[in-house]
């Protein structure tokens, strides 16, 4: 039973503020990801919790007790490093038992608990192997066993899936989530990979430049980003700029480069507002020009500038007047380069942000 509370954490390196007024609460058993670009302060936050960096100001509480005065070896926090850092001069058994040896647990108990831990990570029989004789996934599982054997109150992970190839990722993802749920251990991990965060975490804290910009479930962050920057980071790279031209309590009409697009009215919208609109690549719907089933509203004309075939999906780069769009469609129906199409922008997938302070992302 561990609740982690970070309160107004600040970390400055000389003049650079790496983490700025960062607060977060993770309830017992919570599985939270800190997501952001590299250098956004997420790893620094993790290291402050582990005791490897000292915060400039702010507090860290575990179950209501401040842990700032404790050395790393007294915090009882487990941390899995990105590169697993198995001790190369020790075999698997010695690696896994290391934490217990350091705290003076009796030999017989160490042997028993090491066996148990290796069973948990499905590596029974690997006791005498050395880290260099293990695959990446096995190394990670040894690292997990080595940490969990000490029964930490809190588990920290640094980019847990990023060093694995695609197939292993899948395997480790379900392994880690199952293990986390079965142990009900409060877990915080950092990643720069939105997919990794979405796949693993119950909640995601999005960090830009040392600050938390949005916190919520993966669905919330994915479908309701707070700002165009977050939308962009989460993969909605299509930015369209326009102006509100008509407003009813329900429907708001926006002029985007001569096209009239209808969306749900937002509370503080007024006619004449400049807005930025974005849509995820996979949420656009394509119709050929002579298709009778084309919806009547929210349709813009476009020309395919480039098509990249991925197998199950095709990426299209589309020109529509002054707008550049990027879309990903299933490959059941494909469109050739230079062909004219109609693009339906479903109102429920359009995100509208006030202002137009941001230039479209260059492709």
């Amino acid at each position, binding site marked *: 039973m561990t609740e982690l509370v970070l309160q107004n954490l600040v970390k400055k390196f000389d003049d650079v503020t790496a983490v700025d007024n960062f607060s977060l609460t993770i309830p017992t058993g919570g599985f939270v990801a800190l997501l952001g670009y590299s250098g956004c302060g997420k790893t620094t936050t993790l290291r402050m919790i582990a005791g*490897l960096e000292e915060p400039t100001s702010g507090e860290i509480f575990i179950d209501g007790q401040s842990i700032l005065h404790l050395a790393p070896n007294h915090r009882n926090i487990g941390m899995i490093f990105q590169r697993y850092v198995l001790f190369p*001069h020790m075999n698997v058994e010695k690696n896994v038992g290391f934490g217990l040896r350091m*705290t003076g647990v009796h030999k017989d108990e160490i042997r028993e608990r090491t066996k148990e831990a290796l069973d948990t990570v499905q590596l029974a029989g690997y006791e005498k192997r050395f880290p260099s004789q293990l695959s990446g996934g096995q190394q990670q599982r040894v690292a997990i066993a080595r940490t969990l054997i000490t029964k930490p109150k809190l588990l920290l992970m640094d980019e847990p899936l990023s060093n694995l190839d695609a197939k292993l990722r899948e395997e480790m993802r379900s392994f880690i989530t199952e293990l986390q749920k079965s142990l009900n251990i409060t877990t915080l991990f950092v990643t720069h990979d939105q997919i990794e965060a979405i796949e693993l975490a119950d909640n995601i804290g999005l960090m830009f430049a040392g600050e938390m910009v949005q916190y919520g479930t993966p669905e919330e962050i994915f479908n309701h980003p707070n700002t165009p920057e977050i939308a962009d980071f989460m993969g909605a790279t299509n930015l369209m700029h326009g102006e509100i031209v008509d407003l009813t309590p329900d429907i708001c009409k926006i002029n985007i480069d001569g096209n009239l697009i209808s969306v749900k009215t937002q509370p503080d919208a007024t006619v004449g507002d400049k807005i930025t609109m974005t849509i995820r690549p996979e949420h656009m719907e394509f119709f050929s020009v002579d298709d009778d089933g084309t919806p009547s509203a929210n349709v813009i004309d476009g020309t395919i500038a480039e098509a990249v075939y991925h197998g199950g999906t095709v990426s299209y780069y589309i020109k529509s007047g002054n707008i550049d769009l990027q879309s990903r469609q299933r490959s059941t129906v494909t469109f050739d380069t230079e062909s004219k199409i109609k693009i339906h922008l479903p109102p429920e997938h359009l995100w509208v942000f006030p202002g137009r302070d941001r230039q479209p992302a260059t492709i």
Partner: protein
Amino acid sequence: MTITKNQRKKQASSGNRLSPYQRYYLIFIGIAVVVPFVPVIIRAFSFSWFWPSILPTKWWWEARENAWQPLGWDYIFSGPSHVGEAIINTVFIAIVVTIVCTAISLPAARVIAWEKFRGKSAVEFFLLTPLIVADIAIGLGILITFLQLGLTGGYVGIILAHLIPTTPYMVRVLTSVFQGLSRDYEEQARLLGATPLKTLWFITMPMILPGIMAGGLFAFLISTNIFLLTFFVGQGNIVTLPTMLFAKVIGGSSLDTIGAEVALILSLPGLILLIITERFLKEEIFAKGFGG
């Protein structure tokens, strides 16, 4: 263009093969290293050897049977020669110097390799100064200070003096070893409950062992070869192999048999140590001591 199997074979093997000039150069270097030793070895086993004869006119084993006093090696291994005492002194001092040098260089190298601080490059340069400044200048400076402190004529003074030329090498070797070692290992050990001291003993030390071996070998070899500092600080009270050798050859005109024999003995500790530690050493770490 297609590459035939033969061509590929040629390409693969050419990496291991030296050009004739490279081979001649290597042979030349080999000769330059080995040849100066030859006269010393011959001299050490000769009784009378005068110019212009290429080999001694009388060897030591020919002369020893009807000699009225211990000759050559017999003298070396006899009590009055004090060679045994010199060997013990030399090795004892070198061992203590190596241990103390490692102990003071480890933290220094760790900080230089891992931390950023103001004046870091100045510290790194400062560490090299004992290698730049002449022995005799350092020796005289030390002598004046040690005389005041009463440290002359004893082991403590000599060991302290020997730390001056050995520490820069040790710090250099260990710094590059620490630079190649991720801090993650120590941090991981701490997070698994190890105290700083246990982390040093169970994690850091085993991982930098090759570096400690290389640095230790440097320190040991340098210490066993120091003459000037030992001579100044020891004030003739403490005989080591180098001071004994210098006493023998101080005349400068010729190398006598005893001198050659002491010279050979002087090269032994290093040779033995090299053989013992060979399996721990990695050439690249060793080379870092020279700035490689």
